[in-house]
């Protein structure tokens, strides 16, 4: 037995050192680090926000930090809108949440958010009315739109001979095997509907559904792959795998430009698609007053301009664009008064409609 006990000792020694480093750390801090999550703190010394990653940047809510220096702002990140809704439905405790417009109705229907008294927000009058309207349900404001942006076609100008002028052009066989569309039933539905000139992709008739499905089947020979996130897409565009990509955000465009990749952001004939996200106050918020203060702080023109300059997104505050980078204003075409009317903004979608288009999208993706 002697010889193997030595090996035993050796593994044990290595293991013991490892455990000696890691375990005390784990056991020593559980209260502080591991268990600190969403326990409901009495009083209003903390504000919990369910948010996309990156929105925790302090320059987005400077006034809040100045007014409430002792309040701890706790962020929980989500990756998809569906996760956020799932967590809230399971009783996850937050004060503020930040979903995007096509999901807002589901929160209102499920009673997960409370009406917002906009008179308590001094920056509310500067909010673009078209966007405010998206957050209004049954005459009450449930969501405060904050960030928005375009989804359009991005093209490698050095690779394609003709730059597509419309969504319908994506079906051109010239782009065979070099097109990427997002792996999202919702975007696919809207994109095909827009190309087919179907007026309301968020409420389609069975005949329209059949047309949309066929249209999406028709685009498959052009598709190299479905993209899932901006980082992946930006690599595929830069590398030259993908020449034309659909539903790309402005930040990807600006990043590729900055890295010297020759790309053009198209202004399609049917209009660009537009996403809007915004904050709602949870119906079981522990600190509603702080939530209002936070909302007003992010709506502030300066905070909003910071968001624009950092992420290359738009914001709902009209005054913010005077403070933002001029290149951004021209990219967003905000000098043109009717730009928002031309943009196809995502509308709220019912759970049933979402299930229907998911099944359609599964069939399209899996068609041989």
């Amino acid at each position, binding site marked *: 037995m002697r010889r193997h006990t030595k090996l035993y000792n*050796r*593994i044990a020694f290595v293991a013991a050192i490892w455990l000696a480093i890691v375990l005390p*750390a784990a056991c020593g801090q559980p209260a502080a680090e591991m268990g*600190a999550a969403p*326990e409901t703190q009495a009083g209003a010394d903390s504000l919990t926000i369910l948010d996309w990653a990156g929105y*925790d940047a302090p320059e987005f809510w400077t006034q809040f930090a100045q007014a409430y220096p002792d309040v701890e702002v706790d962020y929980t990140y989500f990756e998809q809108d569906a996760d956020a809704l799932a967590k809230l439905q399971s009783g*996850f405790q937050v004060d503020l949440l930040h979903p995007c417009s096509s999901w807002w109705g589901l929160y209102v229907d499920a009673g997960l958010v409370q009406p917002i008294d906009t008179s308590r927000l001094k920056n509310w009058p500067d909010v673009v009315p078209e966007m405010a309207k998206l957050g209004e349900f049954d005459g009450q404001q449930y969501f405060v739109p904050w960030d928005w942006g375009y989804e359009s076609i991005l093209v490698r100008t050095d690779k394609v001979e003709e730059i597509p002028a419309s969504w319908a052009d994506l079906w051109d066989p010239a782009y065979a095997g070099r097109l990427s569309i997002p792996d999202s039933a919702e975007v696919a539905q809207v994109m095909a509907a827009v190309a087919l000139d179907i007026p309301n992709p968020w409420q389609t008739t069975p005949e329209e559904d059949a047309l949309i499905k066929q249209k999406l089947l028709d685009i498959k020979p052009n598709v190299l792959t479905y993209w899932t996130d901006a*980082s992946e897409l930006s690599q595929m565009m830069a590398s030259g795998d993908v020449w034309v990509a659909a539903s790309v955000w402005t930040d990807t465009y600006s990043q590729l430009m900055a890295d010297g990749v020759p790309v053009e952001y198209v202004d399609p004939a049917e209009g660009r698609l537009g996403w809007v996200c915004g904050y709602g106050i949870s119906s079981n918020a522990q600190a509603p007053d702080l939530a209002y203060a936070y909302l007003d702080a992010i709506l502030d023109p300066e905070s909003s301009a910071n968001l624009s300059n950092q992420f290359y997104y738009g914001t709902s505050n009209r005054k913010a664009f005077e403070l933002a980078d001029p290149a951004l204003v021209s990219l967003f075409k905000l000098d043109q008064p009717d730009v928002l009317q031309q943009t196809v903004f995502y509308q709220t979608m019912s759970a049933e409609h979402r299930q229907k288009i998911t099944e359609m999208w599964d069939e399209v993706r899996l068609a041989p």
Partner: protein
Amino acid sequence: MTARAWRSLNLFYVTLAAVFLYVPLFLLIVFSFNDGATLAFPLSGFTLKWYRELWDTPELLRAAWNSVLLGAVSSVVATVIGAMAAVGLMRFRFAGRNLLIMAAMLPLVVPSVVLGVTMLMGFAQINLPLSLWTVGMGHVVINLPVVILIVMARLSGLDANLEEAAMDLGATYLGAQWRVTLPLTLPALFAAFLTSFTTSFDEFALTFFLVGSEPTLPTYLYSQLRFPTRLPIVVAMASVVIVGSFLTVVFTEWLRRRGETQQTNRVDSLAGDPAIDGRRPGPTMRPNAPALGRGSTPRGGK
């Protein structure tokens, strides 16, 4: 082909496999020093700015640390529970044994996203707030089958008579397990721990349903993917992990060498150590050996 040729061919193959595993990691390190934000050639210049930004992103550092803690704690728990169960399953015959093996293997079959959602509903029902602890509980569930499989595969080659003998010589049951079974299964436990830790460290599908406000490395990474400009910071973090794990390997090797020089004149042959398998070497044994030991080793439970 001679044995020697076999050996060098296999060495060549293993080297190739290692290169295959490490080339992508090397490229990640190269790009963590690249001036551009896009992960594509050509390289645009040397910079340390991503590391500076990494240093200025405390959430990312904390996420990495959370993942290390989570991996270590959940793997230790999974290894202990799983190893105990494996001993029970291999050394005792009892009603429902096969059913229990089946049940223990089931977590492998259920996609982790489903596990995550259903556990989330369960925790919501008992009002357990989400935190790293809830994630850890889920990781243990995922890792239990792995541990049980690995430890059972090891125990199946160990002679139960060894512990019997130890107990005949006066050891208690616990004593026999501690002195005989534990040392003999240690390599398997180490392998099981390593596998669990690795799974836990890169687990995302279950984690992000169960995670509270403390992110793990994978949940942080996935949440950053929508910002192409932030990707290089994550790549810088990955490079730190690569170098860190490389140092771990070197450190382990150094510990081994140190242990070796202190114990002079030793021969390492865990695999071939007859004491381990409890069998005596015998030149008379038939080469066709799979039947060896079968039937001749009564189970401990009798």
